[in-house]
Every structure is written in structure tokens, then in C-alpha cells.
């Protein structure tokens, strides 16, 4: 099973019949899934897919290229606002608007990548943090972006994906599902391929030793800014999809905390692993949506929110969900520094030799 017969198998996505089998099962279940689960869960899966796109994009930058970013909520906001605006004001079809927004985000990623050439570690974190905060400020002040009130996502139609106008509307979460999941699928596969070939290797080389990468002929200026641009591109696409998932966007939904959340998706999933990003995005989205409801639990919810109001909060406002979220992250980083991907690898190794 481990014997490779030719070099293509080194980079192939599915290098065995068994994997093909599971791959087809995955596709089939993704297709029938929305017909089996209630609407709220379809919404949840859509949300997960959007976050998986962000996580993959951010992992390209943080996990593979080794550059930190605390400003990805900014790219997410750019993606959301530019998509909506270019549909309402320029009357572009959705897919074109989404692509335009992603390229605008990528351009800003490139701009933000320039200081990354000179900054490292905490300094880069501060610079990107500044960017993330500035973007939401600018958007909040500018009337065209709807100011503090935000924007409403226009109605989406099937024809409207490719041309402007059209009548068959995509309103329900189930219809959005068939828009978001294929995009997430394509982007994830593309990222995985990219990381296996020349560009991805250059990214990893910069992460592991930028001096050696330079002397081996890797143009570090080009590849660092490229990593920022690609990462922002992914986040921009996710932002555009998010706008239609939620239906309404305003600057305060793209706060600094969102950037932190994105980073925790990457770290919990596993730095430098696309599969880890998928797991991280899915698990953490589930966790966030569930933790919002922790106060509604019978008995325990009351006790927990009373506890957090009394002891954990400065404002007197219950913040138990953030506390549990933080606790889970601390525990994962402590006990599984490679994230869920590391856990997956260990489980796989364990079962390989089972029951011995």
C-alpha cells in the first residue's frame, strides 16, 4: 500500500482505489446531505464551508509560509462589501462580483505583504492587526459602504450567478448550499495541489529557512507577497459568500475578534495542513454556534452564566461562551500542538496496527 510505482503518485490527490472509493462516498453524501437535515443545520454546514475557505487561505499564509496575520477580518470584510456593492451598483452577475471582490482583497493582501518583507513575528502581527482595524473603520465611515448601518445583500437568482437579472431566486439555505459547497470544494483542492508543487514548496522553504530559500534561487520578496495575496484571495471569496449566507453585513461583524477566531481555526486544525484546515474550520464553527446557546441549557446554563457574570466579567455581562472557547483552545494547544491534524495522524497510526 505504501509502495509507490511512479513519481506522479507523490503529488496525486487520490493515489489508491480505497481513497477513490471514500472520495466518491464523500461526494455522494455531500449531494444528498441537504435533503436529510433540517434547515438550521444546512445553514450551519454553509457557515462551516465558508470558514473552511478562510482557514485554508489563512493556513497558506500562517501554516505554510510562516507569516502571521491578525488582519484577515479585513480581507473578509473587503470580500463581503465589494461583492455586494458591485452587484447593486455595477450590476455585475454574482460570480463575477465574487471574483472581482476576491481580486480586490488579493490586491490589498499584496499591499499588506510589502511590510511583511521587513517585519517578523510580533511586529508583523501588529502591522496586520492595524490593517484589520483600519479596514472596518474606513468602511464604517464611508457612506457608499452603508456606514455603520451596513448593507443588505441583494436577492440572488440562478441566472444572476452568470448574468445580471433573472427570476429563479436562490433564497433558501439549501439552494445556497449548492453554491457554497462546490466553491469550497474547488478552492480546497486547488490549495492542496498548489502546496504540493513548486509554489507551495517555495512557501514552505521560506517558512523553514528563508536564507537557504534565497540562496537556492527563491525570490523571497515575490513569494512572500504572493502568499499574502493568495491568502487574501481565499478570504475575500469567503467574505463574499458570507454576505449572502447572513443576508446582511455591517462593519461591526468584521471586528478584531473575528481575525482571532480565524487564527484559532488554523491552529486548532493544524498548522501547515490542508486537511487540518478542513477539520479546524468545521469543528470550530460548530463550537462557536453551539457555545452561543450554552446559556439555554437547563440548570447548567443558569449556573454558568451567573458564574461568569459574578466572577469573569468586567461589564457584568455574561461571557461564558468566550471563556469556554478560550479554554478549549488552550487545552488543544497544550495537549495536541499539531492540532486536530496531529490527532488524526496518531489515530491513523494506532489503527494501522490494531489490535496489536
Amino acid at each position, binding site marked *: 500500500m505504501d509502495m509507490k510505482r511512479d513519481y506522479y503518485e507523490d503529488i496525486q490527490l487520490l493515489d489508491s482505489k480505497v481513497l477513490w472509493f471514500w472520495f466518491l462516498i464523500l461526494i455522494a453524501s455531500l449531494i444528498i446531505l441537504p435533503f436529510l437535515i433540517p434547515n438550521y443545520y444546512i445553514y450551519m454546514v454553509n457557515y462551516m464551508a465558508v470558514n473552511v475557505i478562510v482557514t485554508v487561505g489563512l493556513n497558506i499564509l500562517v501554516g505554510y509560509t510562516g507569516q502571521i496575520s491578525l488582519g484577515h477580518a479585513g480581507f473578509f470584510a473587503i470580500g463581503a462589501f465589494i461583492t455586494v456593492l458591485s452587484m447593486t451598483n455595477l450590476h455585475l452577475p454574482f460570480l463575477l462580483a465574487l471574483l472581482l471582490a476576491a481580486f480586490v482583497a488579493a490586491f490589498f493582501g499584496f499591499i499588506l505583504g510589502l511590510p511583511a518583507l521587513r517585519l517578523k513575528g510580533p511586529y508583523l502581527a501588529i502591522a496586520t492587526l492595524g490593517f484589520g482595524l483600519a479596514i472596518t473603520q474606513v468602511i464604517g465611515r464611508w457612506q457608499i459602504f452603508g456606514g455603520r448601518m451596513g448593507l443588505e445583500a441583494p436577492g440572488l437568482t440562478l441566472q444572476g450567478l452568470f448574468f445580471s437579472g433573472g427570476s429563479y431566486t436562490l433564497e433558501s439555505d439549501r439552494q445556497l448550499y449548492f453554491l457554497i459547497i462546490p466553491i469550497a470544494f474547488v478552492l480546497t483542492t486547488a490549495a492542496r495541489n498548489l502546496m504540493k508543487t513548486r509554489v507551495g514548496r517555495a512557501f514552505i522553504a521560506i517558512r523553514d529557512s528563508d536564507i537557504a530559500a534565497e540562496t*537556492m534561487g527563491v525570490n523571497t520578496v515575490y513569494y512572500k507577497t504572493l502568499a499574502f495575496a493568495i491568502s487574501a484571495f481565499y478570504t475575500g471569496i469567503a467574505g463574499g459568500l458570507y454576505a449572502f449566507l447572513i443576508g446582511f453585513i455591517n462593519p461591526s461583524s468584521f471586528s478584531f475578534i473575528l481575525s482571532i477566531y480565524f487564527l484559532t481555526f488554523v491552529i486548532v486544525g493544524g498548522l501547515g495542513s490542508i486537511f487540518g484546515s478542513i477539520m479546524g474550520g468545521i469543528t470550530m464553527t460548530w463550537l462557536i454556534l453551539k457555545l452561543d446557546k450554552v446559556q439555554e441549557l437547563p440548570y447548567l446554563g443558569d449556573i454558568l452564566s451567573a458564574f461568569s457574570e459574578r466572577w469573569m466579567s468586567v461589564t457584568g455581562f455574561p461571557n461564558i461562551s468566550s471563556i469556554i472557547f478560550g479554554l478549549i483552545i488552550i487545552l488543544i494547544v497544550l495537549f495536541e500542538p499539531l492540532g486536530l491534524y496531529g490527532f488524526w495522524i496518531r489515530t491513523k497510526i494506532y489503527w494501522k496496527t490494531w489490535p496489536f
Partner: protein
Amino acid sequence: MDSDFFSVDNLAITFGGLRAVDRVSFTINRRSIFSIIGPNGAGKTTIFNCISGLYKPDSGKIIFKGEEITGLKPHRIAMKGIARTFQNIELFLRMTTMENLMLGRHIHTKTGVWSGSTFFRRGSKAAREEITHREQVERIIDLLDLQSARDQFVGGLPYGTQKLVELGRALALEPELLLLDEPSAGMNSEERQDLTFWVKDIQEELGVTILLIEHNMQLVRDISDRVLAINFGRPIGEGIPEEVQNDPEVLKAYLGEEESIDAVS
């Protein structure tokens, strides 16, 4: 053998008040092995860093194949055909040996973002390129006997093997000039002997010119065509190995003054 293959002319660089390299000049003939020796801190690695573009020299010229390369960016210099290894190994630790060597092929490949992310079958452009270059890298793996380390992460390999992977990565670039910074450091005598043969092979069979920094005099004597000795950044002797080894200035640099030894005893 043409004499204007590679030359360094009056190279000098200062760090603060320290003249790390002070008016060093030398010429290397094509397909020869040239060694730089000298005590610790003499400025040998600094010369390497100037050649590979990591430092910008204050003055002096570095000429490679009739073209001045002084002050170019490191990746430009690599593209001209100069590869190097490092004294303290600089490998990509979380890549496999194969991937490390594939990175050495960077300047010979051209898969970009689009073709790299969209290949889905054997015949795709990116896949074809990967396959061809993996075959080439396999030859280097064979040459250096690295088969057992092929698919292992280099971070977990023993020191001597890591040194070889670094050599292999430099070779994957198909350099015309190869800079080796203390390749035998930390190797046992058996590994060192193998290395001697490989370096000789690289020079004779692949036709690569080699510039070597080395402390092990045995190795230097065995393979060098010419040797340059430096001390405190200044050249103190140049010639064939035997000549330099018996040069009184060089002996003084390594062993100290004869009078002072007498004075102690």
C-alpha cells in the same frame, strides 16, 4: 580551463570597526577545486556570504563568467549558477529529502499559481514537470546514497545525512560553481572519506567548479588544486596545498610564533 571563470578582486567588508574581509583577491579556474583555509573567525564564511549575495561588500568586485555579480540579490546569483551549503545546516526541516532537493530545482521549473493549483491528471503541465524533475532529483539521491532518507523529514535525519542532503540540494540547482562551507564538519572519518570521493566525483564527472572552506587539512590536501589561507580577513598565502601548508606565515597563524613557544618551554 579558462582563467576568467570566477574571480574575486580586492573584496572588503567592515562590520562596525571590524575589517572582516580585507582586500582579498583570488581566481578560480573552471573545473578546479579551490580551498580557503584559516583559523576560526578569519572571515572565510563572510567571503561566502559576499559571493552568494547575503552581504553587500563595501568594495571590490566579484566576477563570474565575465560578468560582475557584486551586490546582486541572492536569488539572482543562484540563477546565474552559483549554489552553496551552510556551515550550520540550513535545511527545510519540515520537508522530506525529496522535497528539499526538488526545491533545488526551483530555478529550472516554472509551474505557477494557476497551473500548480489546477492539475488533475498525469498529463497536466504541472504534473509533467514534477515527474521530469523528480527523475532528475532521483539521480542525485542515487549519487549520494540517500535512498533510505528519500521520503523522511530531514529534521529527523542524523547530522551527517543532513549535511549530504544539503549538498544534494545544492547539486539539484545544477550549479557551475559550488560553494561548500565546511562540508565535513561533524562527520566521522568514514563519512569524511566518502565525502572526499563525492566532492571529487562532482568536480570530475559533473564538471562543477568547487570553492571549499574546510578545517580538515587531510581533506584539503587530498582534493584541492589551489589553496588560499587567510587570517584576520587578510590573505596570508596562496598556492598548491603543499606550498601553503609549509608557508611560514600560515604556520604562524595556526600555531603561533616559534619564539613564544620557546619562551614557554
